[in-house]
């Protein structure tokens, strides 16, 4: 039996590693190990809770904004600050913009090359590629000359021996099913998406005060002044600026991303039966003026879409039976407010060949909901909304299912996960525009309030209080838990999407979502396990960019 190891960067802690055993051309068992947070409280304990967001936005290499939002929300929840309308809407714009940009990057730059063979694109006929592109979308960049130019550019890149970002692909693998023309079209869009993503993020740059690390958040609201008449505030010009980029994003999603998704998916329908999971959790986000979430929260057990339950965070428990920590009370599950982070590394001394997967094997804790592992992310959000009969979600999901000629059960799969991300991108691209217009309307009413300052002074806070801040980050439900004593942080725990999805086994021996999803995955060539990467990448793990196969060993 072959034992596969997928490990992006063996020298550091803080990475994701997957080990799998393969038998008879299929994955028999899998283990995902990671280091996400070795305890934010180590850094945050004793600090002013109003500053926590500025630290937490540095926690992750990819997402800055998401941790800022969850953090200010956690502190607001603890001290009872009420976010005014302008700030609520601004946050909705920021979150929607981030969601669209992140999903575009994920689809084209972190996931597409699991399905698209760059080298095959070099063999494509540009004329036929142009015909194909015209058939699926009215996107203007679809001429024969255009595709020829792209092909020449990629050819020059490949021939120079500097494959760069393409250097880790399994080009020519038998699991690639697209014809050369579809591959060339996708490669062209891969390059276009690079330009588009850095244009549409200009909305964030405007709202985040031109800094790669947004300085715009504040406990109680936002720090950006809002005034349609003022030159020094978000004004009518800013609204027009944001609308321009929101339109650009929506057009790209409608005319490129969705058609590409449908075209690629139609060649990989077998993946509607591979890589699925059964329990899902969404915390809900994008609140309206009444606090109702545009994408609702909910829990789905055992694929039962008819019985979506409300989320109760008191049912969150983190187990360390198989994780490199110890708890003062032993092998129990702890709610994040009571969370402890005492490292207890018992793994092999690096560099090592294999982890001891029969014992403790991960820096990630096993987070469970009511003792069940939960998948979080776009698929969880779409399934919860679909189960609750959400009109917009149902409309797009049903359109995609119909075009692919599959039923809703196909959603519980790797393909379903990838499709759900695209569906959500379309919805959020539309909502970005709605929120910008909502902000304009609210400003038009003369409302310039941007933050609740009544609770700014720690003297107004209870002696001891605790809060939770939820945010539907692009890769899934994110929660920050804070305990405040005498105006200072006493405990701080982050439950990030990858903690749910990549969690190791728990006290009952239940596999985490990625581990479970990998079981049964076909593997054509155990030396080139492209199929595993498809499922792992479909979860959009934080470290997706670094996830490349580096070694394979026979047992």
């Amino acid at each position, binding site marked *: 039996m072959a034992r596969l190891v997928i490990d*992006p*960067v063996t*020298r*550091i802690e*803080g*990475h994701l590693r997957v080990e799998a055993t393969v038998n008879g051309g299929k994955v028999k068992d899998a283990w995902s190990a990671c280091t996400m947070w*070795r*305890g934010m409280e*180590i*850094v945050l304990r004793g600090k002013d809770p109003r500053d926590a967001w500025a*630290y937490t936005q*540095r*926690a*992750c*290499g*990819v997402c*800055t904004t998401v941790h800022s939002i969850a953090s200010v929300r956690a502190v607001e929840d603890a001290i009872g600050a009420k976010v005014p309308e302008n700030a609520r809407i601004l946050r909705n714009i920021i979150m929607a913009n981030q969601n669209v940009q992140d999903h575009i*990057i994920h689809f084209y*730059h972190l996931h597409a090359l699991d399905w698209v063979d760059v080298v095959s694109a070099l063999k494509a006929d540009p004329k036929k590629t142009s015909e194909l592109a015209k058939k699926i979308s009215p996107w203007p960049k679809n001429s024969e000359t255009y595709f020829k130019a792209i092909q020449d550019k990629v050819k020059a*890149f490949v021939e120079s021996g*500097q494959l*760069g*970002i393409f250097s880790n692909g399994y080009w020519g693998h038998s699991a690639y099913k697209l014809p050369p023309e579809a591959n060339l079209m996708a490669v062209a869009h891969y*390059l276009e998406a*690079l*330009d588009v*993503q*850095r244009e549409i*993020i*200009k909305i964030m*740059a405007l709202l985040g005060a031109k*800094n*790669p*690390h947004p300085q715009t958040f504040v406990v109680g609201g936002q720090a950006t002044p809002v005034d349609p008449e003022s030159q020094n505030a978000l004004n009518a010009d800013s609204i027009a600026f944001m609308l321009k980029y929101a339109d650009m994003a929506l057009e790209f999603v409608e005319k490129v991303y969705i058609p590409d998704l449908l075209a690629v998916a139609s060649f990989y329908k077998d993946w509607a039966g591979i890589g699925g999971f059964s329990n899902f959790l969404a915390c809900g986000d994008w609140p309206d003026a009444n606090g109702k979430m545009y994408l609702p929260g909910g829990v789905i057990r055992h694929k039962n879409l008819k019985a979506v339950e409300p989320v109760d965070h008191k049912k969150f428990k983190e187990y360390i039976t198989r994780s490199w920590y110890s708890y003062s009370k032993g092998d129990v599950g702890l709610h994040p407010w009571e969370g402890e982070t005492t490292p207890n590394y018992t793994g092999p001394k690096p560099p090592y060949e294999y982890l001891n997967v029969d014992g403790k094997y991960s820096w990630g804790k096993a987070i469970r909901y009511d003792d069940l592992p939960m998948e979080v992310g776009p698929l969880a959000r779409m399934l919860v909304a679909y189960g609750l009969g959400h009109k917009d979600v149902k409309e797009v999901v049903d359109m995609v299912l119909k075009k692919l000629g599959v039923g809703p059960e196909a959603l519980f799969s790797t393909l379903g996960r990838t499709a759900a991300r695209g569906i959500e991108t379309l919805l959020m691209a539309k909502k970005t525009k709605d929120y910008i217009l909502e902000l304009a309307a609210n400003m038009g009413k003369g409302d310039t309030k941007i933050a609740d300052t009544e609770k700014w002074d720690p003297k107004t806070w209870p002696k001891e209080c605790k809060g939770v801040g939820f945010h539907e980050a692009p890769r899934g439900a994110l929660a920050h838990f804070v305990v405040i004593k005498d105006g200072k942080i006493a405990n701080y725990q982050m439950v990030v999407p990858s903690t749910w999805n990549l969690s190791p086994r728990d006290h009952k021996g239940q596999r985490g979502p990625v581990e479970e999803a990998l079981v049964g995955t076909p593997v054509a060539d155990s030396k080139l396990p492209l199929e595993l990467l498809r499922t792992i990448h479909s979860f959009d793990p*934080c*470290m997706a*960019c*670094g996830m490349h196969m580096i070694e394979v060993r026979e047992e």
Partner: protein
Amino acid sequence: MEIGIIGVGNILLRDEGVGPKVAEILKKNYKFEPEIEIIDGGTLGLDLLVFIERFKKIIIIDVVDFQKEPGYTEVLRGEEIPPYLKTRFSMHHVGIQDLLEVAKLTGTLPEEVVVVGIQPQVVEMGLDLSETVAGKINELIKRVVDILEKWGVKCALQSHQK
């Protein structure tokens, strides 16, 4: 502005945060003529594309595994850079590698890319630099200033600084 300085690294991982810290000191304490832009790049990768594409020359300040003693500093240029990015102290190195490769592919790579690197002593959760690396801050600043002066930039300590 033709010249940019980007300090990269995770400020929550002790010595990993030396890049942003040096960038902050340069921004606060120096005056440059002509003006240059100084960016705290944190752990970002592709999101920095929009920041680097407008420069002709950039200096990246970062921890680098030179396989030397902690505190060792060196300047890397052009083709010397990529091999060092393959051994990483943290995930942000993946991001920087992707950033440079994508910039090359899309034709937005600055004409000159220089890395001012330092061998870290400790990369673990925490806000403070190790004494060794903290003691090398002036050396890193001098290396950056030397490069800038070769590029024809006048670098002066701000008057309020002693």
